[in-house]
């Protein structure tokens, strides 16, 4: 049992333990039976055959899928960078007292959060060439749609981050003569961004998954590449399983990183006392 569970529940007594064991046993039997059944059916239909799975050992297919992964990563990283810029601008904009700045920011945030990423992609794909007489490259169609949605989400994270800071931070900044803008830039934002770091990494997971929608507009990211490869080798099921595993692996690494950063942040203050104390004694020697 993990630490989190033991905080939520009483330690189980003997009867609860017995019930848990029996319950788990029954569930396990059903699960195994289901898996065996599915595998038998798949096998009967030739889905577990070497012909279906061996292509994944071929250099060309691996390279083809890695190309997709690189495109996925590219769109995700560029989108995160731009979404961060947009999110900070919108988040700070929403916190200003000037209605002329605040209102448009509110509008964009609501639009970005409300509109499905898929729809923004299609809209950009269809409307951009009509409006500007050039095609928007697939990469930018994907990135802009992702930036709109994630920028809006990050704007809300930024706003919440700034609002959770103690109000004394703002007052102390004012009291030494910083202007409102300086206070935001030098005192509030740096602290809010630190608090936000784990949420930002979680947002990267969302971005990576949403980038899969890029195949709709012909962006050759991982899911699109999987679709093409599956046609070629006539093994769609197998390809999607492999690609699904890749997504899960990448995203769970990122989730772990975000949890780790969150935990470290909680410990930082107490840890810093020790490390800096050491540093000082070393220095003064």
């Amino acid at each position, binding site marked *: 049992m993990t630490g989190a569970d033991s905080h939520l529940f009483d330690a189980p007594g003997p009867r609860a333990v017995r019930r848990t064991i029996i319950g788990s046993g029954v569930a396990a039997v059903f699960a195994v039976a289901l898996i065996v059944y599915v595998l038998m059916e798949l096998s009967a239909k030739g889905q577990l055959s070497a012909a279906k799975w061996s292509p994944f050992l071929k250099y060309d297919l691996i390279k083809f899928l890695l190309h997709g992964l690189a495109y996925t990563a590219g769109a995700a990283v560029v989108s995160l960078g731009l979404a961060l810029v947009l999110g900070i601008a919108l988040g700070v904009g929403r916190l200003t007292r000037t209605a002329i700045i605040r209102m448009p920011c509110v509008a964009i945030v609501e639009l970005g959060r409300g509109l499905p990423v898929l729809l923004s992609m299609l809209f950009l794909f269809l409307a951009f060439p009509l409006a500007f007489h050039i095609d928007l490259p697939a990469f930018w169609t994907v990135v802009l749609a992702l930036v709109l949605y994630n920028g809006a989400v990050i704007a809300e994270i930024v706003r919440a981050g700034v609002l959770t800071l103690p109000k004394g931070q703002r007052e102390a900044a004012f009291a030494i*003569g910083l202007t409102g803008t300086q206070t935001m830039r030098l005192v509030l934002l740096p602290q809010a961004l630190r608090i936000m770091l784990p949420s930002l990494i979680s947002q990267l997971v969302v971005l990576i998954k949403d980038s899969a929608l890029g195949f709709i507009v012909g962006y050759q990211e991982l899911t699109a590449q999987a679709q093409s490869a599956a046609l070629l080798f006539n093994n769609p099921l197998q390809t999607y399983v492999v690609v699904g595993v890749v997504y899960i692996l990448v995203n769970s690494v990122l989730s772990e990183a975000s949890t780790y950063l969150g935990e470290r942040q909680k410990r930082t203050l107490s840890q810093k006392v020790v490390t800096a104390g050491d540093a000082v004694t070393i220095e003064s020697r």
Partner: protein
Amino acid sequence: MPDSLIVLDKVNKWFGGLHALRDINLSVKAGEVVVVAGPSGSGKSTMCRTINRLETIDNGTIFVNGEPLPAEGRELAKLRSEVAMVFQQFNLFSHLNILDNVALGPMKVRRQPKAEAHQQARDLLVRVGIGDQAEKYPAQLSGGQQQRAAIARALAMRPKAILFDEPTSALDPEMVNEVLEVMTQLARDGMTMLVVTHEMGFARRVAHRVVFMDTGQIVEEAPPEAFFTNPQTERARDFLGKILK
């Protein structure tokens, strides 16, 4: 009142229906140390905070250096840098080390070069007795050290006056004196100070004048010796009875 650095003239403030400051008249001369005492909720913090406009007032006028308080913008920011403030909760910037806490204002408000601002910050930290803590972060310091760092941060702006709002109330008892000593030294050096505090020993030794507030009013104003030995109002006697027992 040409020689008064800070003047409050018939100042009133309401929080909704609560009349938090009632016709406050107060003037503080350059070099003067004024202690503000009074029961909790009597408006001491509010009065203090109106002077650098962390709270706005509803009517009356506040003058600093003969000029009415600017309402906004660079002028207000400039005024705030000239009237420094030390808070009960220290309010050091938690993402900056102590040196940067002290040097931030001079660099960003006064546009001092970094080397100069850092040198001044180090000197000030030595002056408040924490010269060896410069590289640490606020959370690594004791309350007393944090408050002394906050005083150094205030001094770094070379203010004309410093407002203290219960600077020792959040401290463990054994750390109160180290902060009071720094404040006493500042007073000796001629700093103009408005100090909200319950430290009556400090008031006796250091203040030129004690201002007693109750329910948003200044009820009594006297030199410390006279105030402590011979309070004129029932409310002040009551208060002193509670606090000095």
